[in-house]
């Protein structure tokens, strides 16, 4: 049996195990074990990637000519490590987090968490758009119980919004886009250079818009509202799923559609990439403005995510080699930075009950490590040296120069300023402003809770000095 299929089946098996055990006490350990094994799987798959690359495994012929089929490509390799690696960290975090916040019904949490990651891995392994679509929908459905996990009225309302946005766009835009692509080209397989041999510009324009709206997981405006809604979920869910797995799946699919369905040539020659650039630029700027006005930490992070995702979409749409490099790099770096921010926010809320930026005064005296990690994350988001955020922004700027779309420099500079102005208060307040009122709970760090975040922070810092192997991998294989 193929290793890719066995990875997916292993995760399915893991879900069954958690379901059969259903003990509050040790489902967490089982889940951590599953995520660890999944990471091992991912690393093993990467170690033998040369054999696996572009080898298709058909599982079942869903529609004659379009099978459910898996394969591995270089873009997938990168996303595979990121998502499975961070999954392990978040599993360790969530075990402690759920315990401290006294959440009930842990097995349900882990079942759907694992299912979400199964779907994410499925998206990574998909070798055609139909397979991608199937796992895309599974991911939507699987995250719903997590978004509504608290079970109160607010989370059910928000959960509904979440579903309506994601399912609605996928049914109304994504599905017809796929079918239309199939009618035009007769295939749905991802292929380097695209699958359109002949085309007319109108069809390409329509398709680009359908894909842009349809893949709403990448949260390009105007279909971004689901992401702030999803913030009612417990923090580990917001951290892994709504900063990494779900949103990055959206961007990942977007990248694959633009590079391997349309192809660089078709998009540049038809000029359809301008549409994407416009939507993405608009999203970058307006989400930053909205983020400025959010007092709730998680909501501010969510709007920041929306902007950062559009960076990736924008970088892809510029279609210059450097900008595509920047897109892939940012996919990795944003994941690391944003997960640190979310997990720190989770620690802050757990330990002190603080959920708003305006209450963060002098937080660093209570939670020194967490605040440090949060600061690193924030600097990555702003894109300042010496953090990895700077590297991806650097290549994005190079890409813009290269493609001579110089007006985009304004977008990047403006948004960087905006990023700084909504992240800076968080840092400033927690270090330099005096506390106005007392905190309700113990004032020291909880090391088991902080431990996974420290590891992520460590990796993020080290990576700044070690990016050359990633850049080499991307330039050799993807561009």
């Amino acid at each position, binding site marked *: 049996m193929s290793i890719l299929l066995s990875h997916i089946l292993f995760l399915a098996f893991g879900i069954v195990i958690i379901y059969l055990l259903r003990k509050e006490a040790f489902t967490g350990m089982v889940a951590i074990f599953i995520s660890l094994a999944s990471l091992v799987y991912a690393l093993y798959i990467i170690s033998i990637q040369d054999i696996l690359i572009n080898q298709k495994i058909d599982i*079942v*012929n*869903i*529609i*004659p000519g379009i099978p*459910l089929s898996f394969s591995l490509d270089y873009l997938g390799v990168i996303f595979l490590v990121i998502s499975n690696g961070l999954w392990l960290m978040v599993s360790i975090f969530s075990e402690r987090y759920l315990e401290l916040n006294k959440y009930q019904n842990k097995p349900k949490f882990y079942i759907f968490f694992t299912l979400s990651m199964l779907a994410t891995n499925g998206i990574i392994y998909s070798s055609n758009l139909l397979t991608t*679509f*199937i796992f895309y*929908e*599974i991911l939507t*459905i699987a995250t719903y*119980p997590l978004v*509504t996990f608290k*079970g109160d009225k607010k989370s*059910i309302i928000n959960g*509904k919004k979440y*579903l*309506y946005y994601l*399912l*609605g766009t996928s*049914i*109304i835009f994504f*599905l*017809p886009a796929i*079918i*239309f692509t*199939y*009618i035009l080209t007769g295939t749905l397989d991802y292929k380097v250079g695209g699958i359109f041999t002949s085309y007319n510009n109108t069809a390409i324009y329509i398709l680009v818009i359908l894909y842009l709206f349809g893949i709403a997981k990448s949260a390009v405006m105007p279909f971004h509202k689901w992401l702030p809604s999803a913030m009612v979920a417990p923090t580990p869910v917001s951290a892994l799923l709504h900063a990494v797995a779900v949103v990055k799946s959206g961007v990942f699919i977007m990248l694959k559609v633009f590079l391997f369905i349309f192809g660089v040539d078709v998009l540049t020659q038809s000029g359809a990439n301008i549409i994407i650039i416009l939507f993405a630029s608009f999203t970058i700027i307006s989400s930053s403005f909205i983020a400025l006005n959010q007092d709730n930490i998680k909501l501010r992070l969510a709007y920041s995510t929306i902007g950062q995702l559009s960076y990736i979409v924008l970088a892809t749409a510029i279609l210059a080699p450097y900008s595509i490099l920047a897109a892939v790099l940012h996919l990795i770096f944003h994941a690391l930075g944003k997960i640190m921010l979310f997990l720190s926010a989770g620690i802050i809320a757990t330990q002190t009950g603080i959920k708003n930026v305006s209450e963060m005064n002098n937080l660093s005296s209570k939670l020194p490590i967490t605040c440090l990690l949060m600061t690193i994350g924030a600097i990555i988001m702003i894109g300042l040296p010496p953090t990895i955020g700077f590297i991806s922004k650097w290549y994005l700027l190079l890409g813009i120069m290269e493609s001579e779309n110089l007006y985009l420099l304004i977008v990047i500079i403006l948004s960087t300023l905006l990023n700084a102005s909504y992240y800076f208060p968080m840092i400033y307040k927690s270090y330099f402003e005096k506390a106005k009122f007392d905190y309700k709970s113990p004032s020291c760090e909880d090391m088991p809770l902080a431990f996974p975040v420290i590891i992520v922070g460590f990796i993020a810092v080290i990576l700044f000095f070690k990016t050359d192997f990633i850049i080499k991998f991307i330039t050799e294989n993807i561009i």
Partner: protein
Amino acid sequence: MNQLPVLIIVLPLLIAPILLLVRDNRYVYNLSLGVSFLNILLILILFQDVYQNGNILYELGSWKAPIGIRLNADLLSCYFLLLINFMAFICLIAGNKTIKSQVEDDNIHLFYIAWLLCNVGFSGIVLTNDIFNLFVFLEISSLASYFLISQGNYKASSLAAIQYLFIGSIGAVFILFAIGILYVNTGTLNMTDLSNKIGSGSISLSMSLSIAMFLIGVGIKTALFPLHGWLIRTYSYAPSIIVSYFSGTSTKIGIYILLRVFLDIFNSINPLEYYNLVQLILFLSLIGVLLSTLYAIKQNEIKKMLAYSSVAQLSYIIIAIMLLTPDGLTASLIHVFNHSIIKTGLFLVITILFINNKNVSIDDFSGLGEKYPLLMSAFVILLLGLIGLPLTSGFISKWYLISAILQSDYWYISGVILITSFMTFFYAWLLIEKIYFSARLNHDASVATNYQLLCVYFLAALTIYLGVDTSLTFGISEQISNNFYSTINQ
């Protein structure tokens, strides 16, 4: 001569009067179940035969065709035949307990007899090659259904039956007139003969009258908007087991007649395009889809909700046919099969759980996910199939439907289809939310027997199977539509 086609009709027809003599409820049930099972076996053999060797013609009493009556088993007939009898069998298994508690003891054997006769009528309609016989079989099935519907144990049942009787009779009268006019014009009632004699010339006034009458009659049968009112009332007030059975069969028979009359008998003059009927029907169906989906969202009573949903789904099928392309026909045939399975499954769950409730509201499903984890997951799978999410058969239907629409002249209506298909999600999700996210009410849902549960599981499994492996539905549908359109193009 291959005797199978006639056996499929005659066997239950012979058993029915015997049941009247047996009277003992237990034997009556076992016998009808046995006949039903035997019929499925016969149909499977016939199906395979037809699939390999082409049409099987059977001359009743060996009288040659235009004078004598002929049965014609082609792939289309077999496809519907299998669907109808399969649904009847499943509903019979699941219905035993429900029928016992819903129908008066003295009437139970009559109920089964009516059921068998109804099914004979359906089988006859799809097998006959004689258009007057089609009318006769239609009447047999209708008369039997009036009785079946009236047996619901609340007052409105009789009213629903009477309404069904009236509207059904009006529909039948239209069809009868249409057949009469055809006979006057051509002097024959044999379908093959008819289609030859109608020829390709211009359409006379009387012929167009006949076409119009067929359209209205069939429109009533298929609950074509705005002729769908009877379906809502029937589905709300008939015994639930009958609703389960009818949702998979009776309206699909309407679709069959539509296909037979307009694409087979009249194919040479192509009336649908001649009078711009296509545009009219498409327009009506689109409005039907939109309105009935909206109504379905507003309903609090589940049976009504599913009834409106049926109207919408039937409109999808009709829209697919009206594209008048092979792909459209394929899509419609796939959806006929998939929708029957899904809708029958959904109604069966309601039948099983709420034998005694007059009205089943959405609230009655509150918290049932905890009480019946397996049954409810089957129910949810069926609902997901109705929405058309991937890995269910509904997705396959949707794929082919949208694919056919995008490739036709009417590509712009795909927007309506997509939006309504998303709206399906609204009402289906209402139920899912109740099942899993609401506290349990203290309503007594009745205890299901293992057989009943097995039927539902089977239908749910089939929904997934047909969503993953399409060789059965797609393969046969494609062949049928290719056959159809290759003759039309000649």
